[in-house]
C-alpha cells in the first residue's frame, strides 16, 4: 500500500501482578484510516491504548505514535493524539462548551481560537443547540457525542477511541459510527476498540483481533474478507430422508462445492457460492426426499467467534 504507518507497537508487553495482559503485540496503523482493535472484554484493548498514549508504562517493548516514543515522550504524543476513554466523564456542573474550553486551554489553544473551535466541533457532532446546557442533564448518547467533540477540539492527528459505542442504543451507535467514518477525511487517523464485529466492519479499513493480549489477526478488511472467502464462504446444511453415499458424491462434484461432510441423514456442505438450487436439484434427481435445507454465510464473524471462544 505504501501508506505511512503512524501508530505502531513493537513487542509491546504489559503485566499486572504477574499476569500478562498484553503479550508481545505488534500493531501497525496506516495514516488516515480507521483501525479497529477487536477482542472480547479483557483481551487487553484498553491497556494497549493506554500504553500508546503513555498513560501506562509497558513492561517491555515500545509504542510509537507519529514516530514519538509513547513512554519517553508522552507529552509529544498527547499533543497529537486525542483519547476517548471507555468510562468517559465530564465536569457535570459545567456546560458542554465550558468542558470543551477547559480541554482547549490545557492544549494551549488561545481564547479566540478555542471559542471558534469549540463551536465548530459542537456543530460537527450535532450539539450546537445544547452547548450551554450543563452536562449533568445530558443522556448517555449525548455525552458520548460530546466525548467525540472533546477529542476533536484539539485537532488530533490520531484519535484513540475506547469502546466509543458502549452502552448506546442503536440510533446512538449509528450517530457515533457516522462521526467516526468522517474523521479520516479531515486528517485524523482513528484507532477504535470494540468487541462488536458489526460496528468494526462498518467503519474500519483494517482490523486487529486481540485475544488474551495477543494479536491473532491483523490486516485490511478486504484482505481478511478474501481470506475468509478462500476457505469457502457458505455453509449449506442438507437433510434427507435417508443417508446416501451416492448423493454425497454427486453433490461434491457440483462446481463451487469445497467439502461435503455427512453425519447420518444430514450433510454439511462448504461452498464458494449460494448453491442451494443446484444442490436441491441433485437431491430431487436422486429420488431421496429432501427434509431440510439451511444456509449460513461464513464471514469474518466466524473468524472472530473462533478467537472469541478461545479467549
Amino acid at each position, binding site marked *: 500500500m505504501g501508506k505511512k504507518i503512524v501508530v505502531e507497537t513493537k513487542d509491546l508487553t504489559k503485566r499486572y501482578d504477574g499476569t500478562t495482559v498484553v503479550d508481545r503485540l505488534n500493531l501497525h496503523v496506516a495514516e488516515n484510516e480507521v483501525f479497529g482493535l477487536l477482542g472480547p472484554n479483557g483481551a487487553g484493548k*484498553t*491497556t494497549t491504548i*493506554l500504553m500508546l*498514549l503513555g*498513560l*501506562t508504562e509497558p513492561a517491555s517493548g515500545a509504542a510509537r505514535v507519529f514516530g514519538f516514543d509513547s513512554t519517553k515522550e508522552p*507529552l*509529544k504524543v*498527547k*499533543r497529537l*493524539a*486525542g*483519547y476517548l*476513554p*471507555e*468510562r*468517559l*466523564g*465530564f*465536569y*457535570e*456542573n459545567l456546560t458542554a462548551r465550558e468542558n470543551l474550553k*477547559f*480541554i482547549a*486551554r*490545557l*492544549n*494551549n489553544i488561545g481564547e479566540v481560537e478555542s471559542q471558534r473551535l469549540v463551536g465548530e466541533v459542537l456543530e460537527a457532532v450535532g450539539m450546537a443547540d445544547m452547548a450551554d446546557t450543563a452536562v449533568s442533564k445530558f443522556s448517555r448518547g449525548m455525552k458520548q457525542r460530546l466525548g467525540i467533540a*472533546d477529542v476533536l477540539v*484539539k485537532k488530533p492527528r490520531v484519535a484513540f477511541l475506547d469502546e466509543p459505542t458502549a452502552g448506546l442504543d442503536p440510533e446512538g451507535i449509528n450517530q457515533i459510527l457516522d462521526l467516526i467514518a468522517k474523521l479520516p477525511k479531515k486528517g485524523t487517523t482513528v484507532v477504535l476498540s470494540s468487541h462488536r464485529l458489526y460496528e468494526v466492519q462498518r467503519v474500519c479499513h483494517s482490523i486487529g483481533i486481540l485475544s488474551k493480549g495477543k494479536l491473532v489477526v491483523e490486516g485490511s478488511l478486504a484482505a481478511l474478507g478474501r481470506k475468509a472467502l478462500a476457505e469457502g464462504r457458505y455453509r449449506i446444511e442438507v437433510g434427507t430422508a435417508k443417508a446416501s453415499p451416492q448423493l454425497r458424491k454427486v453433490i461434491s462434484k457440483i462446481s463451487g462445492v469445497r467439502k461435503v461432510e455427512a453425519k447420518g441423514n444430514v450433510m454439511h456442505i462448504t461452498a464458494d457460492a449460494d448453491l442451494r438450487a443446484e444442490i436441491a436439484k441433485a437431491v430431487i434427481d436422486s429420488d431421496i426426499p429432501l427434509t431440510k435445507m439451511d444456509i449460513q454465510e461464513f464471514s469474518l464473524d466466524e473468524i472472530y467467534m473462533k478467537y472469541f471462544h478461545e479467549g
Partner: protein
Amino acid sequence: MFTIFRKELADFFTSIRGIVVLILVFAISALALHAAYAGIRGETETEFVFLRLFTTSEQAIPALLNFPTVIALFFMPFIGIALGFDAINSERARGTLSRVLSQPVFRDNVINAKFLASIVILSLVAAASMLLIAGYGLRIIGVPPSSEEVIRLFIYLVSIIVYGAFWIGLAMLFSVLFRWVGSSLLTSLAFWLFFGLFYIFMVAPALANALAPTADGTTQALINNYEMQQLLLRISPSYLFLESSTVLLLPLVRTLGIITIGEAAYMIPNPLSLGQSLLLAWPHLTILIGLTAVCFGVSYVVFMRQEVRAT
C-alpha cells in the same frame, strides 16, 4: 498548570462547598468577636489589647471557644478536609482524570495545581476571618494595633495557613490512596477526631498517667507526669499548632514548659519580645511544615505511580 488552578478556584467559589465555608467564616468571626467583646471589658492588663481581641473569651462560655482554639481544633481541620478529601478520587470516579491526563500536561501539574488552589482558598478564608475580627474589633475597642501586634498577627496568619495546608495535604493523601470518595472522607474525619480531639483530651492524659504515675504524689512524679503528657500531646498536630498560636498571640506566655512557684517568684511579669516568642514557636512551626511536606510528598509520589484506568 494555571488552567487547572483557575478551574479549581472557579469550581470552589461556585460550589455549595464554597458557600458553606464562607458562612462558617462569618459565624466563627462573629463568635470570636462576641466572646472578645464580652470578655475584654473585664481585663485589667493594658498591654497588647488588640491581640486580646483574638484570644479573650467570656468567662461564661468555656475557654474552648476562643478564636485560636476554634481555629486549631475545628475550623482549619474542617476546611482542610473539605478542600482535599475528594481532590483526586472524585476525578477518577467521574472519569475526568483520564481525560485531563490524556492532554499534553505533566501529570504532577494536576496534583500541584489542586494543592496550590486549595492553599490559596484556605489563605483567603483565614485572612478574611482575621480581617473581619480585626476590623470590627477596632470599632468596638477603639485601640489601634501596634506594629508589633500587626506583625504577630501576620505571623499567626502564616502559621494558620501552614497548619491548614497540613490538613489539605492529609486529606489529599487519602484521596489519592482510596478509590472511593466516601472512604477518604471518613478516614480524614477519623484522623481529625482522633488526633485533633480525642487524643488531646482523653488519650494523651490517660497515657501519661499510665506511663508516669503520680500515685506517690512527689513533686518529681508530678513533673514527670506533666512532661510526659506534654511530650505525648505534641504528637498531635492540632496541639502543636495550638501551642505555637498561644505563644504568638499571648506575649506574656514565657515558656511552654513547666515552672515551679519558686522559679516564678523570680520572673518579671514582662511580655516576651517578638523574636523570643518566635523562637519558642519555631520548632512547632517547623514540624507542621515538615508534616505538610510529608503528606503532600507521599500523595505526589503515589499519584505519579498510580494507574490511570478507572476500572
